[in-house]
């Protein structure tokens, strides 16, 4: 620890401070060094001293550290997040609440968000991932929505890295263990492998729920003297220090910093869900907030802050799992499956009956007060007495220096390839093989509304009791973001847009989970700023406002950062299931390519997987062309002109055509290109493209519509037979299927 001279705390209001400052002999003395251990920088500590005019108590220091760390305060990212588009006629509630709320017509709304649980999952993959799922589900049902779909976007280190298999196995079974028990269908996600994640895996969990648009619940408290009620699991010492740790770069000392790992209890979460929904229906709930990172602290402050009220907490009433818990521990505990709410006092009996029915612990732990004060009492002592508004309102905000990412060098010579062989190699690789190994461990059909299960473009879930449906997808290509953050940011949104469109869904809105390295490094900050710029541009152009999101910074180990990974989760709407488009073409169909092909091989899957080369620029994204192409595909779908559609992304047309063939169990033939090389034509990753399959009879109408909208459309092949033929070379569907379906198990060492 540095021995720099400490700035003296302001001396002035000493008498007052002494009178107010709660003194407990057992508690460590608060010094700048202790503040530093809590992750507070010297200037941040000084800010606290200035604000209070005294030294904070130990509990108060803990509260500040929780409120002001990166995870809760967004101090490095706020400035840039503000530039994102968050509005639109479809948006009922944008960022700032537990989850975003979007109108889906007929008085209904979809509520969704994505959140990371990266560090905890690296330390204890099963529990880390499980509690990540628990957290995001709580965010959704806190708003009054019943979760109807979940996704998970996972990034792991190199397949051959010694930790990778255990992380994959643990994370996947943790996600399944929690979501399956809770009873939400897990319908989509992503899995990628890259050495940049060797020391930091990413676990981004998405959840969406359904609610009546006029019955959304928010966190702002209202009314003075209203009871603040604690509901759910008891408080233990779980994760004390966790929020602070989640914002610190990993180093060798991680073993020492390890807090008690949080263990998830999906059974309690399920009861909490049912109890909360019943409670909300009873009219008893004024406001509600789940306890996430730094549970009681953040939730109580948020409820007060949003409602412009103070909060008084009596910690003696908090249900504790362990004996002798201190105020500090209770305020910072990250025990899962807990809620805080302000209830209507006249509905107390009804509320109690519901808690008892579900055998959940509850307690009145405080009340709202008129003063702007956050007062925490424990035993006979006042453990914290802070100005509530200032706790979040004066949180530091940084305009961190950043440098734009340098332009990428052009791609070098790409050797000639045998396209069918290359295709087989790609589809057998851990990055592009089937994820069946993963999603078969997730219950993806519970709730009996899953129309399109994992393995297609977007997953489609029917809106219960209607003929409407919602489509879900999660996308980002970190290679692109690394080479060119702005285009990469755009591309992530564009790919999500494409996946929704290829399923026949009209894209509605977006959630983002921005995973980056250490923002105190200007190059990393440059990646962050660039990606946000690109995401913002794309969301505007494609009318997919950001309604919720999450930022995870400091994903570095020993100075080595992850690839910039701004995961985009997006939701689309099918007004009727008749608009649904699948990925499986019919025998004899023509295969048509929508969009322009320049043969872009920079940062392509082909270069990386076959040659280990990460070269060139990311493919440019023409947002106007993207919008038009998506509209065209949806139009084709609505008119019943096509039998199947699939967007082109990693691995270009070759991979897309093969995936369609595998989905249908029928071969495809794609002819070569006159001027582009086989590598460029079959594996180029130009954006804004789709393959659609149609009956020959519909070709004239397809062409007509394409000409009218000035979209390139050309016939590239046909569906039939039992082989996938790319130009001059072919591979049997059986071989390809074995490569594709067996890839994941091979990577996990489970192939016998």
């Amino acid at each position, binding site marked *: 620890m540095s021995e720099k001279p400490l700035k003296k705390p302001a001396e002035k209001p000493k008498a007052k401070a002494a009178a107010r400052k709660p003194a407990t002999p057992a508690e460590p003395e608060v010094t700048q060094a202790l503040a530093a251990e809590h992750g507070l920088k010297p200037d941040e500590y000084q800010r606290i001293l200035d604000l209070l005019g005294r030294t904070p108590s130990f509990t108060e220091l803990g509260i500040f550290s929780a409120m002001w760390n990166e995870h809760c305060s967004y101090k490095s990212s706020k400035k840039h997040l503000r530039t994102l588009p968050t509005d639109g006629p479809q948006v009922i509630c944008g960022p700032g609440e537990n989850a975003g709320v979007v109108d889906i017509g007929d008085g209904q709304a979809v509520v969704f968000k994505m959140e990371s649980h990266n560090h905890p999952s690296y330390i204890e993959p099963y529990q880390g991932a499980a509690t990540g799922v628990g957290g995001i589900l709580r965010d959704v049902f806190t708003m009054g929505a019943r979760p109807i779909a979940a996704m998970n976007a996972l990034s792991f280190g190199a397949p051959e890295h010694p930790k990778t298999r255990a992380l994959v196995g643990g994370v996947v079974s943790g996600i399944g263990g929690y979501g399956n028990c809770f009873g939400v269908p897990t319908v989509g996600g992503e899995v990628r492998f890259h050495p940049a994640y060797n020391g930091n895996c990413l676990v981004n969990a998405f959840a969406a729920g359904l609610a009546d648009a006029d019955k959304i619940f928010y966190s702002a408290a209202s009314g003075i003297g209203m009871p603040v009620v604690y509901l759910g699991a008891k408080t233990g010492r779980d994760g004390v220090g966790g929020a602070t740790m989640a914002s610190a770069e990993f180093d060798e000392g991680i073993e020492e910093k*390890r807090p008690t790992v949080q263990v998830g209890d999906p059974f309690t979460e399920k009861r909490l869900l049912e109890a909360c929904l019943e409670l909300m229906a009873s009219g008893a709930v004024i406001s509600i907030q789940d306890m996430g990172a730094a549970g009681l602290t953040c939730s109580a402050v948020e409820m007060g802050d949003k409602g412009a009220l103070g909060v008084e907490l009596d910690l003696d009433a908090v249900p504790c799992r362990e004996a002798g818990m201190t105020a500090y521990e209770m305020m910072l505990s990250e025990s899962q499956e807990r809620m805080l709410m302000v209830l209507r006092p006249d509905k107390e009996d009804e509320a109690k009956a519901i808690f008892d029915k579900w055998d959940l612990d509850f307690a009145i732990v405080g009340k709202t007060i008129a003063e702007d004060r956050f007062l925490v009492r424990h035993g006979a002592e006042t453990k914290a007495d802070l100005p509530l508004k200032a706790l979040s309102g004066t949180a530091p905000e940084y305009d961190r220096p950043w440098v734009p990412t340098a332009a990428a060098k052009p791609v070098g010579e790409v050797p000639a390839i045998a396209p069918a062989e290359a295709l087989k190699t790609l589809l057998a690789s851990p990055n592009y093989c089937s994820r069946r190994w993963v999603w078969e461990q997730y219950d993806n059909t519970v709730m009996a509304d899953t129309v399109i299960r994992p393995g297609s473009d977007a997953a489609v879930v029917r809106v219960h009791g209607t003929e409407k449906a919602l489509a879900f997808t999660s996308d980002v290509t970190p290679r692109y973001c690394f080479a060119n953050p702005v285009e990469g940011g755009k591309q992530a949104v564009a790919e999500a847009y494409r996946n929704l469109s290829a399923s026949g869904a009209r894209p509605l809105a977006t959630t983002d989970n921005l995973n980056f390295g250490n923002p105190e490094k200007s190059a990393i900050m440059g990646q962050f700023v660039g990606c946000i710029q690109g995401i913002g541009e794309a969301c505007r152009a494609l009318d997919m406002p950001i309604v919720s999101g999450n930022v995870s910074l400091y994903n570095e180990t020993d100075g080595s950062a992850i690839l910039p990974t701004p995961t985009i989760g997006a939701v689309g709407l099918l007004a009727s299931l008749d608009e649904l488009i699948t990925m499986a073409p019919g025998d004899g169909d023509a295969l048509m390519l929508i969009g322009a092909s320049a043969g872009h091989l920079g940062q392509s899957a082909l270069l990386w997987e076959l040659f280990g080369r990460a070269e060139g620029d990311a493919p440019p994204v023409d947002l106007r062309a993207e919008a038009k192409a998506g509209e065209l595909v949806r139009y084709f779908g609505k008119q019943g002109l096509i039998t199947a559609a699939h967007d082109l992304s990693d691995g270009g047309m070759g991979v897309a055509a093969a995936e369609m063939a595998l989905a249908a169990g029928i071969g495809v033939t794609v002819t070569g290109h006159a001027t582009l090389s086989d590598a460029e034509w079959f594996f180029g990753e130009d954006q804004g493209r789709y393959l659609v399959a149609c009956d020959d009879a519909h070709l004239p109408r397809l062409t007509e519509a394409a000409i009218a909208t000035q979209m390139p459309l050309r016939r590239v092949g046909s569906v039939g037979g039992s082989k996938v033929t790319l130009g001059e070379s072919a591979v049997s569907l059986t071989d390809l299927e074995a490569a594709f379906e067996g890839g994941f198990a091979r990577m996990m060492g489970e192939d016998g």
Partner: protein
Amino acid sequence: MKARIFVTLKNGVLDPQGQAIAHALGTLGFDGVSDVRQGKMIEIDLDEKDKTKAEPKLTEMCEKLLANTVIENYRIEMD
């Protein structure tokens, strides 16, 4: 040689299973149960006959596979 390995959750780590069992025992009318914790017992038949040689081997097995030392403790018993 037979060895038994007992794997238990560390103190302070939430044990939802134990809680559910305690609750169910209460519902069934068993009172006076103040706490329940659920752990694992793993019985291993080893060719090794020498305890002093078996022990480090078993410890290594626990550290590497049988226990998740982030949240679990283990104890080794040999016949």
